[in-house]
């Protein structure tokens, strides 16, 4: 049966609301082969897998283009259950395990072996009792196939992350139909040794005739186990590699190299800039932000520069800004202008002249139901007590409506915010204009240091350029130090002076923005750091 074609995709594409995220993807996967799928965040990997797995989100947004064949028959799954029926198993990045259950219980979840009893006649199959012995046997068998060290009676809540990952994979193996296994970043949470065990298990499974699609950011692993490697970039298959005939560098450059469109360009003047003394020092910062844990970050940011923080999603780059601003539990030392910044107190950094533009524009950044003017002055009013005027001889202070209106009008004009008037509710504005209001809100504080997180997320190309130009101009005119956090490397490279890349909650390296993008790509993929301190949960 070796060499028999299991999965073929022909011209698969997808767009969400006119926004193309995937186009014309073609590949074939043979039985017992491992296919490596690599690409940056947003390259279309998840969308491709969602299509394959029949996730409801695909149907709800108008289906997909192209054809998928399994065993030469065209398939189109309307739900994950149909995909499971056809033998497609998927292990997601987020664990889908019941915490209070044992490994064995989770492996057989909703497919438990049961025993008959008389009450079944009256009340149906769900009153069958569980056959614990058989469940255990099945779990042991699956674990044995995986060839990992996992105790079937161990409770999931007490497991290290690696064991949870193994439990999930064991569940897919226990399903007898499984012929195609999709592993989405399975090694991201594993220690080196665990990852090595998993890679070995994968090869063993492939030897048993199960085909695997392996998604990973760790290129070395991909090179080690895969039979074919596909690189996705901006929704297209840019290259197909065979591992014997390639190396890390060429894969990395295929992943990150891209043409720049509609973004602001660097000028000679930018390159000649020199930065001042150190204004912000961060030492051993940890931040407990869910999904963006920062483990140990050390940084020095110079006065007047635009400092970029990049890295893949979930590696902790967002946590740095949010941690310093006191939004999540954090620890370590942060010094601003020679003074210590108290952590876990959102008021402290703001009163010291640090402002932030949140990545969560609609959640944290704006009061959606309130007018533009209020949004712009709200933080300033709270933090600096401006836009207030005393009445009753200073007993009470009320909002100074005239000053607020003036301020709002000023920023509407300066940032070219498209709106009816300063009294319009923010919820009615487009994403780009909402982002400008977030910027105006931060500018109104007249900060000495400004954190800007994902300023161009979810806004169109034209607005992106305006937002970036605004930031650059504000920096040039007022000498404000800006720390910009973004997932889009090219965007960072276009306006920053230096860029730090965060990987697994630590700074993997800091490079001048003029370095070629491959260098940054390698940092993101964790290739430069030699020793990695491991974390066990």
């Amino acid at each position, binding site marked *: 049966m070796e060499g028999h074609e299991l999965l073929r995709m022909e011209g698969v594409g997808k767009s969400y609301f006119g926004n193309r995220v995937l186009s014309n993807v073609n590949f074939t996967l043979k039985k017992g082969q491992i296919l490596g799928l690599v690409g940056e965040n947003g390259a279309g990997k998840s969308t491709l897998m969602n299509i394959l797995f029949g996730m409801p989100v695909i149907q709800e947004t108008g289906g997909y283009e192209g054809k998928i064949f399994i065993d030469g028959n065209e398939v189109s799954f309307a739900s994950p*259950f149909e995909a499971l029926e056809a033998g497609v198993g998927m292990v997601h990045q987020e664990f889908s395990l019941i915490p209070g259950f044992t490994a064995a*219980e989770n492996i057989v979840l909703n497919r438990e072996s049961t025993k008959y009893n008389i009450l079944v006649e009256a009340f149906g199959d*769900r009153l069958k009792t569980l056959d614990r012995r058989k469940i255990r046997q099945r779990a042991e068998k699956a674990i044995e196939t995986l060839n990992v060290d996992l105790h079937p009676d161990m409770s999931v809540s007490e497991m290290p992350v690696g064991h949870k990952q193994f439990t999930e994979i064991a569940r897919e193996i226990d399903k007898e139909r499984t012929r195609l296994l999709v592993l989405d970043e399975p090694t991201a949470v594993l220690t080196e040794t665990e990852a090595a065990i998993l890679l070995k298990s994968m090869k063993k499974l492939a030897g048993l005739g199960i085909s695997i699609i392996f998604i990973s950011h760790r290129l070395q692993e991909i090179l080690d186990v895969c039979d074919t490697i596909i690189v996705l970039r901006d929704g297209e298959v840019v290259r197909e590699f065979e591992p014997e005939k390639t190396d890390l560098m060429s894969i990395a450059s295929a992943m990150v190299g891209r043409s720049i469109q509609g973004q602001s360009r660097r000028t000679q003047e930018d390159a000649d800039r020199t930065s001042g003394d150190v204004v912000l020092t961060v030492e051993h910062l940890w931040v407990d932000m869910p999904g963006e844990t920062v483990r140990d970050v050390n940084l020095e940011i110079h006065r007047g520069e635009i400092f970029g923080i990049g890295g893949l999603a979930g590696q902790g780059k967002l946590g740095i800004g949010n941690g310093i601003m006191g939004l999540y539990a954090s620890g370590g030392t942060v010094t601003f202008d020679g003074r210590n910044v108290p952590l876990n107190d959102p008021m402290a950094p703001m009163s010291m002249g640090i402002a932030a533009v949140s990545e969560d524009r609609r959640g944290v950044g704006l009061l959606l139901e309130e007018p533009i003017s209020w949004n712009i002055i709200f933080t300033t009013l709270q933090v600096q007590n401006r836009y207030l005027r005393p009445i009753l001889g200073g007993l009470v202070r009320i909002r100074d409506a005239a000053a607020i209106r003036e301020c709002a009008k000023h920023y509407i004009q300066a940032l070219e915010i498209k709106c009816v008037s300063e009294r319009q509710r923010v919820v009615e504005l487009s994403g780009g204009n909402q982002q400008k209001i977030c910027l105006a809100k931060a500018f109104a504080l007249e900060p000495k240091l400004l954190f800007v997180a994902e300023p161009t997320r979810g806004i169109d190309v034209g607005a992106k350029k305006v937002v970036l130009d605004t930031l650059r101009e504000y920096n040039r005119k007022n000498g404000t130090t800006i720390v910009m956090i973004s997932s889009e490397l090219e965007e960072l490279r276009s306006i920053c002076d230096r860029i730090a890349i965060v990987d697994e909650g630590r700074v993997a390296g800091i490079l001048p923005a003029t370095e070629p993008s491959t260098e940054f790509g390698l940092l993101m993929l964790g290739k430069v750091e030699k020793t990695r*301190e491991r974390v066990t949960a």
Partner: protein
Amino acid sequence: MKYTLREQISHFLVQYAVPIIFVLLSVFAIPLSRFSTQYLVQEMVARLARDSFLVLSLLIPIMAGMGLNFGMVLGAMAGEIGLIFITDWNVMGIQGMLLAMIISTPLAIFLGWMCGVILNKAKGREMVTSFILGFFMNGVYQLVVLYGFGNIIPIKNPALVLSRGFGIRNVTNLAGIRHCLDDLFSFNVMGITIPAATFLVIGAFCLFITWFSRTKLGQDMRAVGQDQEVSDSTGIPVERTRIISIVISTVLACYGQIIFLQNIGTMNTYNSHEQAGMFAIASLLVGGASVSRATIPNVFLGVILFHLMFVVSPMAGKYLIGEAQLGEFFRVFVSYGVIAIALVLYSWRRHKERERARRSLRGAA
């Protein structure tokens, strides 16, 4: 992960804070009350027989992650309607009790199903929803019993009906079935009467719960209780499972209320069910259960500790301050207070545990 002894002790104290407080209070109050040991033991045995079934009916929704089923009062109401009918028809003894159960079962199933459907629309806020639902159904119950009975639903026995000709009287005399289950089969040990038949029923119920948790349905309920999304993604019918758990709980609460009232012998037509819910939930929490976790030992420990306080505190208050009213006040204070404490402790504890789980993610700094 290893914890120090200190951490373990504080973990234990947090886990069992409520029962520990009650044990300490009892140690303090029992000598003050001047009750004899024999009297207290007899009281506790009687109250165990009377209340355990009601409290046990709360376990299954907790297993399914729906918290404390304040909606159990719906079941209690169904049981009371059954009792009104058999009293009117003058069916006595154990037959009467069984008939009351048979009459009220379909009603309890319907109410439970309704409650379950509503709670599915209020996921994450089951407790407050079922609590208010209890108040709402209390209104419907009053409407039916106060105006429907004797008007639309014929009631022959004039002793049951208010003098105006319709509506059930405030107090319904259940002399016909009084102690019929308790006395079916009982014996004396050292002067203490043990209602063995009732305990047999309770024992059978405990076995049922243990068996039930080993069925596929029980396993599904535990899964749904811990993570609805994961359960849903593996194909477990989440909503249906939740409805079933509430239906079972409501029907059992209905039986529990019938057992409770056969022991009391009179029924406070418009209040009995309200107290049933409040006291059962308070007992369970006193026994060390939480909103997400409750076991059979929690039930018995809780019933004993809660009712010990109940019996002892008025007398202790009387001898201590010369005011029996104080004990009465204490009862009410305790039953509401313990529910409030348990709810606060629960979210506080969950917060602590999350923090503890996340601590490992932090750096060495």
